[in-house]
């Protein structure tokens, strides 16, 4: 029993508040805790990649990969060690694919922001194979 609930019951037993008031206070307290629980967003711990054969597919290969997000975070920090020439080549390749993003301008803060928001990230592709990418 938490402190606030205990205090309400004590006040009721001492006659400081009526049963109706105690009931109202207790229901307000439980509503507040429900709201708080809803607001607490669990940080994702793993990035999952699942590949399964689609319906009627002859290929029965299955892939199930689970990677800790912290490892991705640490690995992305290695990006700053990529030589300038290689970074330029990555940029060129991205431009060729129509992605106008300068790879060299991604900062550690951006990576942190991406990984914070990755909780809601889900990719679901269904074809010959079903591919699922999500966080848990």
């Amino acid at each position: 029993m938490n402190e606030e609930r205990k205090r309400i019951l004590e006040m009721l037993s001492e006659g400081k508040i009526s049963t109706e008031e105690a009931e109202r206070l207790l229901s307000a307290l439980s509503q507040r805790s429900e709201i708080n629980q809803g607001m607490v967003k669990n940080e994702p711990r793993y990035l999952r990649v699942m590949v399964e054969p689609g319906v009627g597919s002859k290929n029965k290969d299955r892939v199930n990969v689970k990677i800790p997000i912290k490892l991705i975070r640490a690995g992305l920090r290695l990006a700053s060690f990529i030589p300038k020439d290689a970074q330029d080549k990555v940029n060129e390749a991205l431009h060729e694919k129509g992605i106008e993003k300068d790879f060299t301008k991604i900062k550690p803060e951006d990576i942190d922001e991406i990984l914070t928001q990755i909780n809601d990230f889900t990719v679901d592709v269904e074809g010959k194979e079903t591919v699922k990418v999500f966080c848990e």
Partner: protein
Amino acid sequence: MIPLMLELDIKRKDQKGRGSFDLWLPLFLIWLIALPPILLLTPLILLAALILWPTGKGRYILFLYLVIFGLIWHMSGIKIDIQSNKKIVYLNLI
């Protein structure tokens, strides 16, 4: 947390199980062996980073050393499970 065990399970379906194996590698023993050289190397790396700091390379040496530690530290929890018609490969870092 640092991975303490590595489980590598390879099963071959096409050769009636021949060539299949299930390996449990106690990584904590490797870390115990690797710890003294790492401890010995740390002051040398710090010294090299300090000497090379004016050239700009010192920062990279120090940063790389920390990043490699970070990568090893966060490797536990990796699970890779690949199943095909011929083979099953399962890798788990605990």
